[in-house]
């Protein structure tokens, strides 16, 4: 246990050292502290994985966080198979991205600050995955959100960056609103917020209904959906996906680490972690599956037409996250986590390659101004190509195995919407390949379309950046090999490993069906690649003509279905309008202040009338007084 404490607290120490000493003392050397800390965490995390593979899990409290009556919660750690995998994903990605950042952020005036935030993020993410209770999970959850806010708004003097950071935080708060209520419901139901007793007792509440805000609802569905609200926000699912594309305002390593590999997958982790609760509610699972499927389709269509290289990858992330939820929704939690794990590598790699491209293009993000970069930056090109092959689901690459497992379990699983989401998933697989290779072809092939100055500047990135790319590339190719299905002669080790935590999904289908599903998805992937090749390399006029032909559709996609505008119109502006015109203008000024100021004013007006009695003549007062005496005397004596 004590060793494992190092996993989260080394990055925390690095954060504290950097934030306190970085500005005046460490300066350009700040990265050493953070890298050493995360490397230390990685080593211990590997040890933890080895331990869990040997079947040793840990669930211990560090100290009592707070106690109020029967509400008790501690800071404590749970390390089981799921946590161990997450630890590996988080520390590996984090470490490689830390190293990459040394080159990427070189010369930035906030160098120490950047590494401090990265360390803080790593700490929070590790606290999130290692928590043994919901409240600590919530702590990590909000903590990573905060770091995301800091890092998106890293270039805070840019309005768009600070806007994006704020948007990410607030949109996430909407999700956390449900998540927080979910935790409260869990406490009220089970009397505790620790995972172990909650999951152990969950079965006993399977058929309870509860009165929630006047409606009788199924208890487990309610809890599951409330928790899922948090997942929707954090993992940028519809309808709370709007923050993630904007989050690309942050430095690219941040997009890779937080908005691709780790933080955004926390939502999937939450659903997987709470699988004992979700499994008790068919409705909740169906909602999860459909949300995932619809989001993945929706984001993939947007990704087709965007021109900002990072935004395409961001929509791709949303889409792939949808995939993971799709998996969880059909009960295939381990497949979802498997995809999370492979996705972390190839998506981080995609982002880092995009960062490398940006580095070469001096910050240019527009695809239409690139082209032919492969001869200038071969390492970047090859690694990015491999990552794209992986995401497109080309057999042998990591993405193929995880995606295939999801599709197969969706098709064969017991879920009532399984066939539907399988269909959507296959379409998305096609779209994924299409937009991924659109990106590759437009960036690296063809002729350079930017300015001469940019062309002159083109160069491969330094070693400190390319080495992490190569290492991640290994992950993007090989990370899937731990989960090769039985069908292909593998041992499905990943699923087996996760079994104690996530259970084993039962798919019932024949081998031929399984082959068919696999074939369909492979065909979809290859046809996507082929279409991209045809459209963007051979006949570059087709996309333009298509856009002109279906200008309405194109415009909707280009504007991301106008969701941002919809929210602005529906929530943001009315709220401010109400505040300004009704609450300040009417309630406070016209009603409350009118009453408050009106009473003294009325008294003042009355005084204006009766002050006339005060003539200032002594004898008038005396006469009035005497009259009073007369009345008293009359009353008393003539009674």
């Amino acid at each position, binding site marked *: 246990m004590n060793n494992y404490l190092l996993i989260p607290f080394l990055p925390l120490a690095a954060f504290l050292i950097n934030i306190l000493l970085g500005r005046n003392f460490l300066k350009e050397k700040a990265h050493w502290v953070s890298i050493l800390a995360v490397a230390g965490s990685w080593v211990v995390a590997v040890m933890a994985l080895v331990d869990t593979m040997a079947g040793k899990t840990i669930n211990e409290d560090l100290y009592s966080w707070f106690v109020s009556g029967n509400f008790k919660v501690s800071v404590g750690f749970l390390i089981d198979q799921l946590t161990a995998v997450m630890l590996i994903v988080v520390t590996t990605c984090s470490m490689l991205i830390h190293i990459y950042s040394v080159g990427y952020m070189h010369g930035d005036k906030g160098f120490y600050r950047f590494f401090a935030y990265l360390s803080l993020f790593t700490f929070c993410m590790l606290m999130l995955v290692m928590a043994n209770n919901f409240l600590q999970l919530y702590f990590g959850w909000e903590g990573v959100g905060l770091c995301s806010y800091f890092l998106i708004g890293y270039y805070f003097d840019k309005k768009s960056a600070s806007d994006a950071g704020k948007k990410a935080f607030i949109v996430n708060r909407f999700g956390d609103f449900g998540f927080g209520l979910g935790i409260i419901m869990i406490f009220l139901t089970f009397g505790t917020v620790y995972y172990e007793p909650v999951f152990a007792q969950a079965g006993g509440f399977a058929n309870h209904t509860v009165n929630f805000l006047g409606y009788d609802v199924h208890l487990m569905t309610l809890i599951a959906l409330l928790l899922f609200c948090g997942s929707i926000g954090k993992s940028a699912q519809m309808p709370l996906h709007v923050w993630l594309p904007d989050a690309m305002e942050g430095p690219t390593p941040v997009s890779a680490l937080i908005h691709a590999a780790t933080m955004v997958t926390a939502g999937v982790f939450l659903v997987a972690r709470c699988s004992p609760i979700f499994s008790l509610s068919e409705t909740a699972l169906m909602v999860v599956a459909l949300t995932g499927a619809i989001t993945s389709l929706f984001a993939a269509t947007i990704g087709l037409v965007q021109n900002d290289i990072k935004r395409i990858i961001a929509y791709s992330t949303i889409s792939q996250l949808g995939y993971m939820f799709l998996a969880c929704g059909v009960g295939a939690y381990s497949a979802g986590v498997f995809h999370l794990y492979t996705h972390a590598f190839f998506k981080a790699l995609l982002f880092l390659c995009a960062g490398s491209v940006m580095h070469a293009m001096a910050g240019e993000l527009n695809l239409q101004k690139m082209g032919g970069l492969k001869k200038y930056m071969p390492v970047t090109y090859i690694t990015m190509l491999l990552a794209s092959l992986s995401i497109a689901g080309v057999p042998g690459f990591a993405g193929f195995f995880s995606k295939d497992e999801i599709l197969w379990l969706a098709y064969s699983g017991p879920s009532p919407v399984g066939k539907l989401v399988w269909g959507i998933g296959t379409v998305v697989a096609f779209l994924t390949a299409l937009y991924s290779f659109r990106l590759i072809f437009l960036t690296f092939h063809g002729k350079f379309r930017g300015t001469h100055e940019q062309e002159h500047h083109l160069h491969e990135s330094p070693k400190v950046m390319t080495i992490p790319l190569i290492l991640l590339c290994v992950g993007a190719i090989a990370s899937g090999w731990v989960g090769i299905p039985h069908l292909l002669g593998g041992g499905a080790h990943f699923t087996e490993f996760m079994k104690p935590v996530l259970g084993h999904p039962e798919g019932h289908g024949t081998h031929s069906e399984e082959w068919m599903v696999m074939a369909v998805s492979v065909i979809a992937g290859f046809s996507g690649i082929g279409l991209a090749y045809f459209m963007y390399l051979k006949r570059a006029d087709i996309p333009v003509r298509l856009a002109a032909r279906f200008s309405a559709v194109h415009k909707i996609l280009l504007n991301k279905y106008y969701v941002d505008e919809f929210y602005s119109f529906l929530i943001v502006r009315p709220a401010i309008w109400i505040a300004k015109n009704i609450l300040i203008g009417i309630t406070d000024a016209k009603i409350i202040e009118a009453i408050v100021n009106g009473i003294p004013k009325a008294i003042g007006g009355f005084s204006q009338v009766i*002050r006339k009695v*005060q003539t200032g*003549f002594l*004898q008038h007062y005396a006469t009035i007084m005497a009259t009073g005496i007369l009345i008293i005397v009359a009353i008393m004596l003539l009674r």
Partner: protein
Amino acid sequence: MVPLNWYLMLSAVVFMIGVFGFLTRKNIIIMFMSVELMLNGVNISLIAFSHYLQDMRGQILVFFIITVAAAEAAIGLAIIIALFRNKSTAHVDEMNEMKG
């Protein structure tokens, strides 16, 4: 024997004449004298009660009233002098500083 009621009526008449003077005269000195008149009216009834009740306390009270009247006259007249110095008038209807 003169009945007590007669004294009391006399006292009341003197008192009310004092009140009348106080309420109606312009001259502040005459108003002040009206106050003395009222005090004397009260004194008459007190002495009368003292006599008829065969109790000394009435006279003690009169004794104190005269003391206070003396003090009051001294202070009051000093105020009048100060007032006259500032306003050059002894007419109350010309003093309405307290008008609301």
